[in-house]
């Protein structure tokens, strides 16, 4: 059955895979952002010994190999590992965790750059208006929101494309932890290359649609706020 047929007939198996892919990647980006944006803001606005080293490490982690991250989380979450009692190996939660780990450095590094650039612009005015530190951070994050959304999209791109880490911690279990990318890997290994290519095109299409939506949101927002 070609991928196109699956799409047109609304095949529930395909739908479940797409749904899980989006759920896992979007959740991962969300959690990564909750951690990464404040971290980026913190690094942008503060100065302390070791700050530069921390920034270098964070930038380097953007290139963390997914399989390495997958292996690390696998060992953590395995029943015989330190967090084994959580019992979440081979579940979507584990996939969200490992993807959040991969995506957080990207979001933090890009946030830091964006917020630092904006801080240079806003610094005098915010100081002149006597804005307190917490409000400063909130204002910078809010005013930089469109650039931050681009950072989130970069993170989402990495998450949606990723397969090595989630196959290790998720186990590619049918109907449970199988996503678009792991399904593509599976169909490839079953030799059904046309289906694998088709699924790949569906995945690309979805990612393009999400980027288009974000772009549209950004344009609408810019018209309002300039």
């Amino acid at each position, binding site marked *: 059955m070609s991928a196109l047929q699956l799409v047109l007939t609304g095949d529930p198996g395909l739908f479940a895979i797409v749904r899980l892919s989006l759920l896992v990647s979007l*959740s991962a980006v969300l959690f990564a952002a909750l951690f990464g944006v404040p971290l980026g803001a913190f690094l942008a606005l503060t100065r302390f010994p070791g700050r530069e080293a921390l920034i270098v490490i964070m930038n380097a982690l953007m290139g963390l190999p997914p399989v390495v991250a997958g292996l690390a989380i696998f060992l953590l979450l395995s029943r015989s590992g330190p967090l084994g009692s959580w019992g979440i190996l081979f579940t979507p*939660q584990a996939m969200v965790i490992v993807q959040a780990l991969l995506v957080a450095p990207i979001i933090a590094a890009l946030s830091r750059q964006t917020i630092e650039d904006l801080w240079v612009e806003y610094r005098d005015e915010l100081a002149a208006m006597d804005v307190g530190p917490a409000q400063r951070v909130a204002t910078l994050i809010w005013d930089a929101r469109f650039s931050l959304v681009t950072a989130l999209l970069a993170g989402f791109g990495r998450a949606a494309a990723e397969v090595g880490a989630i196959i290790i911690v998720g186990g590619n279990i049918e109907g449970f932890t199988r996503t678009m990318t792991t399904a593509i890997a599976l169909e490839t290994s079953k030799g059904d290359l046309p289906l694998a290519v088709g699924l790949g095109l569906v995945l690309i299409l979805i990612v393009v649609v999400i980027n288009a939506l974000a772009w549209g949101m950004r344009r609408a927002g810019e018209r309002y706020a300039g």
Partner: protein
Amino acid sequence: MINRRTVMLAAALVASIPILATSVSAQDKSIVVSSTTSTQDSGLFGYLLPLFKEKTGIDVKVVAQGTGQALDTGRRGDADVVFVHAKSAEEKFLAEGEGVRRFPVMYNDFVLIGPKSDPAGINGMKDVAKAFQMIKEKQAPFISRGDRSGTHIAELAIWNKDAGIDIERDKGAWYKSIGQGMGAALNTAAASDAYVLSDRGTWLSFKNKGDQQILVEGDKRLFNQYGVMLVNPAKHQNVKKDLGQQFIDWLISPEGQKAIANYKINGEQLFYPNADDKSA
């Protein structure tokens, strides 16, 4: 501005609910079975598991890895049941106290796959050890799973024991160990006109055969036995021993065995049930 932030926060919480919900509902009646890529890639589980679920309501989550990796998953307590095809490795597993008891379930056979051009000239040979020797002599390209899977273990046994070749020492550039599953090995062999040892089930259901075909089959040494074991709950408290045992019992029951025999691709049977053969 506060309103928008609240909305964003709410959206975040809402987004995380489905992830949590999935976990709660799915863990109700389910087991994790670590098995081999051959049982997955051949489509056998896709056929059997819905039957089992209909009968017992138990969700079987299959993590497909090579035999070695599948047994390690059992050793770590990350699976409830292991279902693999390397008797020596399984017996070692039992001896370590990691499993409760081994039950033979089914068998199929390995087949030696190669290109139509057959550079080593082994087509139709009945002795697989001799075929391996000819491949080495002609230095014809050969793909090895290289991943401690049941197929890999069987392949090594043919080299080392039956053909008398110390493959680790005597291999050359013609021998490519890829460290991946059966499907990946078949893909690689098809793309590089190489020989590869495969289980018949995966081969029959493989969709990228190209001009590869079965060149050697039927040798007794190509017999491939599958066994199932419950991971020892004494060693790992979290093992769902009742549900796991139900799965094992079903596999070796007349009903399960019949289902296994009924799985066919293009009218050809892939696996032969033999739970009643105590020596298997």
